[in-house]
């Protein structure tokens, strides 16, 4: 965090990381430099750097409490960082908040929704808050609800939705303004396999048309199959970042993750639990 840029308005040139595969002239979708946050005595994020190339499907993996959610909150303008800067497509997130937020769609984890609205009302609300006109909003709400298989529950209050449906309606709220960068914190948690596959298709289509997606997840398998880039975060530090193949090498992502993060119990343990 010593090299934290001091309010410079333009992003630094992408660091020469192996991550830069998306064409030399395309500005990265997200650049993070020296981002740090402390809560009381606990350092949640310890001055991380990250480059997310434009058009990539970027996975963010890490154990519980690694600082994923804190990092993503700071990168998306929800939580003010103590140090460091973030640029989204060249726009400084904390100096030009509105401009940066227009480029981003955010699905935060662990926050409530305005759940006394119906699903349809909630997504409409998200669109109107962004200053979109009513006709466009109505059209996109209809498309989104159909694509996410929520059309028949459009009029149900979100408070009566299941956990998976709630995730999906939050995702729809993040997509309504057709952002260039999607930041999704645990988007697949408690989503059923069919819906998860639908969401994956939507995201793949979005990436292939030039959008950028960042997802955080615990599920290594999913990240390995779905993402082309990955960063491993633990203890508030980035342990590895790059294309999935570069990071995992010959191993599976899961094994590499365990190797990087450590902490596996190698003992015999719980012998009494064995039933035979």
């Amino acid at each position, binding site marked *: 965090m010593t090299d934290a840029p001091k309010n410079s308005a333009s992003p630094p040139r992408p660091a020469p990381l192996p991550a830069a595969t998306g064409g030399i002239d395309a500005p990265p979708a997200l650049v993070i430099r020296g981002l740090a946050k402390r809560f009381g005595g606990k350092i949640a994020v310890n001055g991380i750097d990250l480059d997310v190339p434009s058009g990539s499907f970027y996975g963010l993996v890490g154990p519980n409490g690694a600082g994923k959610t804190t990092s993503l909150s700071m990168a998306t303008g929800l939580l003010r960082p103590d140090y460091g800067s973030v640029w989204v497509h060249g726009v400084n997130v904390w100096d030009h908040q509105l401009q940066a937020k227009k480029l981003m769609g955010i699905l935060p984890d662990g926050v409530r929704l305005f*759940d006394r609205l119906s699903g349809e*009302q909630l997504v409409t609300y998200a669109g109107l*808050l962004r200053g979109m006109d*009513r006709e466009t909003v109505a059209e996109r709400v209809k498309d989104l609800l159909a694509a996410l298989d929520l059309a028949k529950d*459009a009029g149900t209050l979100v408070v009566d939705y299941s956990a998976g449906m709630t995730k999906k309606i939050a995702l729809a709220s993040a997509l309504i303004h057709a952002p260039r960068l999607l930041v999704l914190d645990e988007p697949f948690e408690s989503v059923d396999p069919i819906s998860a596959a639908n969401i994956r298709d939507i995201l793949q289509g979005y990436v292939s048309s030039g959008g950028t997606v960042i997802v955080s997840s615990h599920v290594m398998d999913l990240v390995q199959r779905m993402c082309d880039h990955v960063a491993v975060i633990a203890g508030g530090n980035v342990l590895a970042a790059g294309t999935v193949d570069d990071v995992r090498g010959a191993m599976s992502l899961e094994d590499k993750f365990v190797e990087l993060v450590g902490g596996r119990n190698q003992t015999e343990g719980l012998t009494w639990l064995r039933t035979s």
Partner: protein
Amino acid sequence: MVAHLLRLKLLLLRNSLRRSPMQLVGIVVAGLYGLGILVLAIVGLAALSAVELEVAKTVVVLAGAAVLVGWLVIPVLAAGVDTTLDPARFVTFAVPMRELLTGLALSGFLGVPGAITLLAALGTIGTWWKHPAAMPAALVCAVLAVLTCIVASRAMTSASANLASSRRFKDLSGVVLIVPLVLLGPIITSLSQGLTNLAEYLPALARTVSWTPLGAAWSVPADLAAGAYGEAGLKFLMAVGTLAALTWLWKISLAKALVTPAHSSGVSRGGGRLGFFKLFPGTPTGAVAARSLTYWFRDPRYSMGLIIAPVLPLVFMISGAGSGNYAVLDFAAAIAVGLLVWSISADISYDNTAFALHVATGVSGTADRAGRALACAVLALPLGLLYALVGAAVNGTWAFLPGSLGLMIGTLLSGLGLVSVFSARFTFNAPAPGDSPFKSRPGNGFAAGLMQLAGFAGFGVLVLPELVLVVVAQGTRQVLFAWLALAVGLVLGGVLFAGGLRVGGRLYTRRAPELLLAVSRDA
């Protein structure tokens, strides 16, 4: 197992004290208050030993019956007053029913309400100290009665648990039950006015109540003291029977609740109903207003304000009916409007972390502030007009209508200006979405209370000019001052409203992430 449950309760109590020093201060203040009441109760009960037997019996029986009713009703009203040992949390542990019942019942004594009720009930020993037969009976019956209180409230909660797990019931019950509660004062006033001969009526009432499960236990020592041993025996049997019946009821409903996980089924509804979103303009401000207005009707935390605000001036009116003086009606409009306006002073705290959507979309501070104010004004203005017109009609003071209108408009505009700044600056530990609106959440502490008090005082100062003019107009019977009040209300209110939106909007834009962090901490 019983000891485990008791230890768990104590541990929960202790840990809840550990959260913050401010909370400790709040609890100490509340504790001192409770202790004061307790001491008063015990002293009063001991003093009853000096009065006539019949009077002492009347007081003890009626007060005791009231306490039992309180224990029965309050948990239903405030679903989740004390959920520290919510039976639902024991579903996954195979605790034997008998031990679970005993543990939960005894743990009721360990809470503040249980302990105070028990100590006060034991105070009845002091009432009967002159009667050797009644004194030990008072001890037994006090414990019996308090145990009945605890078991009754537990039975009530677990019996309604299945019902209460449906969201719609929770939303409705809280809101509907507030009405009789608000009207309680006038009801009692009119009742007592009707019963002119209170001194004759109350002992008769006590005699009747003592033969019901509500008052039986409390009346046993009194009957012993009076020498009516047969009567005392019958009532004691009745009290024990009541406890047994309640325990049985509790047992079966608990058994049912333990195997029926909380579940609410909803009916799927198709789209096409945008409600208020269709009525307001399709701008960020309009959207915020539509969302807020939807919440006024759908979220019990807001609906409660919506119900209290129109009812409360009615309460004043009914109390005024006795004296035939309806002067308060001139202020009813301002009171109702003021209540509605103040209820959005913690609007962002009520949003809880759902506020993240506002931060994520980068909605401007002005749009956020203006939208919330607009929704409130849409509700408050018609209500205020109605009250002002009714007041003028009842009192026949049409000439002074501009005055009460001015005060009402001033209250509305100045108040909205104030809360626009206030809610962008301060957050509170408000009841979370879906909680009972009665549930006071721990951790609000003293400082937050003072802050709200200060805000409310500030509200008073802002509308003081209009208020003074209205009072002067009434005092001097000069219509000129009423018109002045209207002018001041419109101009000063307008200026304060515009200023409040501006300052609040700027404050919001600058502090939106900090506000989100604050409500996430409170959550």
